[in-house]
């Protein structure tokens, strides 16, 4: 779909450097936004910085690009030191050969699509201009080459911005919330296209997002940030299934929380007993269960697990969202569940809930 990259680019790939940020700290005035963070992205790898707004992820990106002066730590592209606070070394952004794509795309309104993309190219790089033309054509944007950015749709602008960042064959690619400016319907397709382009570019890519689903889709590895620190790093599956604390678990949306008590080798919860695993005997814990981890069944079948009262059941088409009342005390606990397909028991009827032991997320009680 995307034309093959030029030999120059392919050559770069074999030697494409990784991005290494070591012990980076940054403060605005007295407000510390990044605290002793280390990030490594190997060539051809895509790493996502995931976290709520204000967690310092965009600052980290701007530091890598050179748009903020590094206050503490070291940044290397491969073996080349790009910035080092102890040596007072700062290569200016224009000397780094990084590609940076902004959330608002930051296309130049006075330049055409072609001129925007060619902005970072040396005047006489005819071969690269050819690549740009071919790529524009393959994206269905050939007829917009001489148009101005304001006539393009959001998705088209996004692709132009991505091409502009990639055109000068950057050593490292930085993406700041590349999809958040797009409307929801187009996002999945554009994400797919972007993924393809990036996997062919084969360069180290660091992407910032606050959308966990986006991070899961795009990333080889995810770094979860909170309050300027990295709280967990790992493969997307690990982040989802083995969150190291409640904050990471809750990133993926509302979650059911239940109290738990370890006695012997058993973890007692209102939804039944489970193997305690590594939990200490006698410990009071907090058990988190994702809505999709609750497997519901109607009583008529060979139902297992405790019975819950259905408070509401709403079909969202592809899945059904239910709220359920678990009678575990005076007031009971309200749980949310998400079942695939259509599952619409009557309100007030009873269903049985089952949870696989491995989908319990157990944390010390607060």
């Amino acid at each position, binding site marked *: 779909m995307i034309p093959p990259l030029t030999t120059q680019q392919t050559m770069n790939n074999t030697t494409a450097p990784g991005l290494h940020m070591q012990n980076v700290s940054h403060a605005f005035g007295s407000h510390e936004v990044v605290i002793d963070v280390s990030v490594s992205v190997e060539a051809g790898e895509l790493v996502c910085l995931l976290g709520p707004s204000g967690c310092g992820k965009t600052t980290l990106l701007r530091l890598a690009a050179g748009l903020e002066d590094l206050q503490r730590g070291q940044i290397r592209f491969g073996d080349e030191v790009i910035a080092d606070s102890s040596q007072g070394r700062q290569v200016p952004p*224009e000397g780094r050969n990084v590609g*940076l794509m902004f959330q608002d795309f*930051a296309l*130049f*309104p*006075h330049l055409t699509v072609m001129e925007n993309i060619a*902005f970072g190219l040396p005047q006489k790089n005819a071969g690269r201009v050819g690549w740009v033309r071919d790529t524009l054509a393959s994206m269905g944007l050939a007829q917009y080459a001489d148009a*101005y950015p304001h006539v393009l749709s959001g998705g088209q602008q996004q692709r132009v911005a991505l091409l*502009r960042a990639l055109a000068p064959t950057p050593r490292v690619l930085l993406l700041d919330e590349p999809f958040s400016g797009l409307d929801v319907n187009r996002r999945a397709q554009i994400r797919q296209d972007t993924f393809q382009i990036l996997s062919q570019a084969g360069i180290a890519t660091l992407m910032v997002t606050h959308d966990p689903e986006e991070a899961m889709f795009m990333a080889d590895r995810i770094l979860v940030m909170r309050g300027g620190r990295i709280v967990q790093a790992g493969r997307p599956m690990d982040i989802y299934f083995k969150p190291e604390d409640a904050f990471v678990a809750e990133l993926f949306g509302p979650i059911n929380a239940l109290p738990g008590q370890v006695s012997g080798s058993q973890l007692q919860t209102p939804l039944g007993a489970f193997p305690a695993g590594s939990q200490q005997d006698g410990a009071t814990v907090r058990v988190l269960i994702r809505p999709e981890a609750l497997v519901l069944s109607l009583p008529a079948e060979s139902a297992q697990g405790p019975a819950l009262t259905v408070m509401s059941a709403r079909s969202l088409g592809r899945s059904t969202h239910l709220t359920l009342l678990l009678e575990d005390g005076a007031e009971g606990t309200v749980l949310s569940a998400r079942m695939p397909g259509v599952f619409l028991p009557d309100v007030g009827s009873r269903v049985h809930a089952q949870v696989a032991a491995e989908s319990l997320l157990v944390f010390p009680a607060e």
Partner: protein
Amino acid sequence: MSHPTAVADRPATRALSRFLPSDRWGIATLVVALFVATPLIAVAIIALTPAPDIWKHLYNTVLFGYVRRTVTLMFGIGLGTFILGTGTAWLVTMCRFPGRGFFNWALILPLAVPTYILAFVFTDQLEYAGAVQVALRDMFGWRNRQDYWFPEIRSMGGAITVMTLVLYPYVYLLARAAFLEQSVCVIEVSRTLGKNAWQSFWHVALPLARPAIVVGMTLAMMEALNDFGTVDFFGVRTFTAGIYDVWLNMDSISGAAQLAAVLMIFVIALIMLERSARRGQKYHHTSTKMQALPGYKLRGARAGLAIAFCALPIVLGFILPAMVLLSYSVVFFDVALKANFLTITLNSLTLSFGAAVAAVGIGLVLAYGLRMGSGPLPRAAVRFASVGYAVPGAVLAIGVIIPLAKFDNAIDALSSQLFGVSPGLLFSGTVVAILYGYLARFLALSFGTVEAGLGKVSRNMDGAARTLGATPFQTMARVHFPLVRTSLMTAGLLVFVDCMKELPITIILRPFGYDTLATFVFQYASDELFEESALGALTIVAAGLIPVAILALTTLRSRPGHATGSCSA
């Protein structure tokens, strides 16, 4: 072992170094802003320097008269521009009557006429020998002054009338925008709650537009304080006239400076009023939703009254003076040419052009400096330097004379000491002094326009350009300049036209025998030779029409919020 003083010094130095800008942009911004603000600082220093003798003298002689007359003038103009500006704005936005579309833009035409030129025209027409009284005498057979009563135009009332007629567009423009921005829903709600159209205006629309109207009134009053030509010509001895008088006729720079310092109290009060009203504007937005305005249909006598009310200021503030000037210009064309009209016009054009270029250049440096995010000190200095727009030209002129004279004397002394040659005064009494005064007064105009233009260039565009390999200078040339070019042109044009009209700074600072169109017209009018200088006055009005035409074509065309197209090409 420890050195207590050194230890104590360290945090202080650190605090100071954090306060002072360290980057090149920050230093440049601070230096340039301080340079432009020097006249203001000079006046402030004088104000704080005790001068008991001068004060005693001023107190015993002129001070209270100046205060009383200045307050009366400001109050009269505030009230006059409020009635005329708000009334016309309400009529053209909320009512439908014949000619409304024309009045919508024509009501700003008087902005093109400087106060002093309207004063000369009115005097020319309304004095004893003027066309109006001659016609009245012919009609009724009166023979002399004793036969009838006629208001004296060269009076406080005359000054208020004349200035109101050309300054009301400030209120008109802001009130009009405020009425248009109001969601018509609130007026409809008021009507469904049982208020009639008049009550709805009084209880809903007017209070909502109040901050904008107050801003307009303060701007008009600032212009009134700045005016020198009218009050001098009419013999209304306000502070501005007093400063000129004390400086030129009594040759007392320190006395003039003390008066300037007192006048600054009025200016500061106006600035504070304006700022607080501007803050209020934010909270008075009812809705961003635009709907067709109600358009009360006026018929018969009501429509006639509305037409008369809107036509009056246009006729008196623009059409009449334009016709008078035009006819005199034709009749006295040869006389004007003989009076060096071309040289004087060239003086005006060069001076205004030079000031425009300098103001845009400096405005660009300051806007950039702030964009580069230098510390609080440069920021404060820039804000201070842009206060000049509110300060009367006469005050700024005094503020220019003092530091320039000090500078010239220092150079002179240094040169005599080192080389035994006395170069005399280098800048005082040259056009450089006038240019400095123009800059101090009109920098805010260019700075504001450039800053707004630069605001369209997002910081991410800078980031994109830099990461694509452009140096800061290339970013400026390839991204910023093409995007702010139009703003720079506008800024230059605005400063140019204001300099063409400028009178008080020019007349105080001009070199001996040097004239601009404004001083030429003023001089001739003062010598009762107004007709001969009409061509000059007409030229000034014509230049003033340029920004008015642009305003009429752009802002007045569409309702706010309906403007289409962003910053893009």
